[in-house]
């Protein structure tokens, strides 16, 4: 379970996150939906311990991310904004490295890497250097890295950004499977379709604040709209920065 409690973050005079609170439960896919620049990435970065909040706190299974980052990170799999691969390393080497960094033994690392390569359908490219990989293949390695230590909580920052249709569908399927196996999945997106396709709960963020939280149906009921797009526009008060 991931909890954000009144998170605040400023960069100089710019307020990136003003007040963000939400809960992402186990067995659920929770979407952080908001226009570009709403504070989604900054909020997630406070969750996985890269940024220190100026106020409030982020909890991963009850552990405060800011004060015990290593304990929180052990229970967390993260797919950051940029895949950040090493061009001279193969897919398998990436996964093995991630496993070792998370504290798995060499034997466990080999075993987990092989299992994940198989599960993500990367068997054919497992031993090729990643420099020649497509966007979708890169994202798969990054996802494999996030899941390598079988974390209870998974945080994905815009996981389908820049992917083609088959890769997007594969990513969404994986996200669903994770939640169905009891994991807590939190992902950010600015794409409305994605929300209705995979999410159990939605947290709408605009201008650094939570505008609304609930199931897609609850949000429709609250706004009296019949489709999510209209509900969303009404909730955040603008159409700016949205992707269909």
């Amino acid at each position, binding site marked *: 379970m991931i909890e954000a409690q009144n998170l605040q973050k400023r960069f100089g005079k710019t307020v990136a996150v003003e007040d963000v609170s939400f809960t992402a439960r186990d067995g659920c896919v929770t979407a952080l939906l908001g226009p570009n620049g709403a504070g989604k990435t900054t909020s997630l970065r406070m969750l996985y311990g890269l940024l220190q909040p100026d106020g409030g706190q982020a909890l991963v299974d009850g552990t405060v991310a800011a004060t015990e980052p*290593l304990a929180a990170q*052990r229970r967390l799999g*993260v797919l950051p904004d*940029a895949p950040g691969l090493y061009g001279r390393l193969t897919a398998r080497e990436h996964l093995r490295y*991630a496993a070792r*960094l998370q504290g798995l033994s060499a034997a466990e690392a080999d075993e987990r890497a092989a299992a994940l390569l198989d599960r993500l359908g990367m068997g054919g490219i497992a031993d090729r250097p990643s420099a020649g990989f497509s966007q979708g293949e890169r994202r798969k390695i990054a996802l494999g890295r996030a899941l390598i230590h079988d974390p209870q909580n998974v945080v994905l920052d815009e996981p389908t950004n820049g992917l083609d249709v088959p890769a997007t569908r594969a990513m969404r399927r994986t996200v669903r499977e994770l939640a169905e196996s009891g994991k807590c999945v939190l992902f950010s997106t600015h794409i409305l379709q994605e929300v209705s396709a995979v999410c159990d709960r939605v947290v709408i963020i605009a201008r650094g604040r939570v505008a609304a939280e609930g199931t897609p149906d609850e949000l429709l009921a609250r706004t009296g709209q019949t489709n999510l797009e209209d509900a969303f526009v009404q909730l955040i008060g603008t159409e700016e920065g949205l992707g269909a």
Partner: protein
Amino acid sequence: MTAKALSVFAKEALDAARDRRSLTSALSYAFFGPLVLAMALTLIAKGSDDGKPLELAVSGAANAPSLIRYLEQNNVEVLAPPDDVQAAVRSGDLKLALVIPPGYGKDFRASRPARIELVHDASRIGTKTPVRRVEQLLDRYGAQVAGLRLSARGVSPQVARPVELDSIDLSTAASRAALALATLPIFLLMSAFIGGMNVAIDTTAGERERGSLEALLVHAVPRRDLVAGKWMAAVVFNLLSVTLTLLLSFLVLRLDRLQKMDVPVALSVDGALRFLLLLLPLVLLAPALQMLIALFARSFKEAQTQLSLLMLLPMLPGLLLSFQSFEPKPWMRIVPILAEQILMRDLLYGKAIVPSAQMLTGGATLALTVICLGVTARLLHHERIVLGR
């Protein structure tokens, strides 16, 4: 050392070994210093004429038998001249030649200035020394003959010699070689700063520029393990570079040609190991310093530029040390980099190195290394550094 730090090391070493840029920068420089040294020493060996007879082609030797005898008594080997002396000198077949015209004997006997031509090409390297040697011999021969003529006329030869110049050049090929060898510590120092530089930059500024730093930091790894692993990878490349430079220098000094010259500072196996031991703290320090500085750079290129410029700084005292005979002050013994250069100079000139002095120097350098690594690990907690803003 933790298992995680070792994993980071293994990954960075593998990554760097596959990077042609890292490998070439670590290895190509190692050839540079010894190569320059070999060339300089070979030139000195070639120019060396210590005690060797001077070969001199003489045209018209029969016109001046007493002069020829004088030359031969003074370590000159008189050779038969080619058909066209000037053409041979112009083409470089001959360095210099003496031409004694047919009228020499007549003029000499009549006590008129007798003309001799010394043909040479001053623009060719290596002609200056033999030409000067022949000129000096001819001067002395002239002075001797003048003295005899004055005595025959009842005048003391002293009268005609108001000043007597005796130029004594003590430089030998060996001492000139020692001067060239004084550059060895500078080359070694530079190889300790170049060998791991690419890895140090690539794993810090490069990692951030490619966007992989954030992905790395989300793993449950203490920052000090990350820094330690990356640092060790750079150290390995550094050590490779320094060892190769030393090995090649060692081989250069073993060349037969140089051995014959009796270079006083020939590098023994023992000496080479001492150099390596002396350089070891620097091999550890350089990547730590470079990683720290690279983290402040905005890009790989910027880090590379800054570090290349910064590298020249420690070279300056090295240049001074190699050319001046100055006595190091006590405080210099604890200034990392400078202190190592002082010790290397001592080692080069066969001065005994006090173990406590070396411990002091090594300790100061290691302390600075630990500080750099600690600060680098702390910096990885800073948002501005991590996000590169």
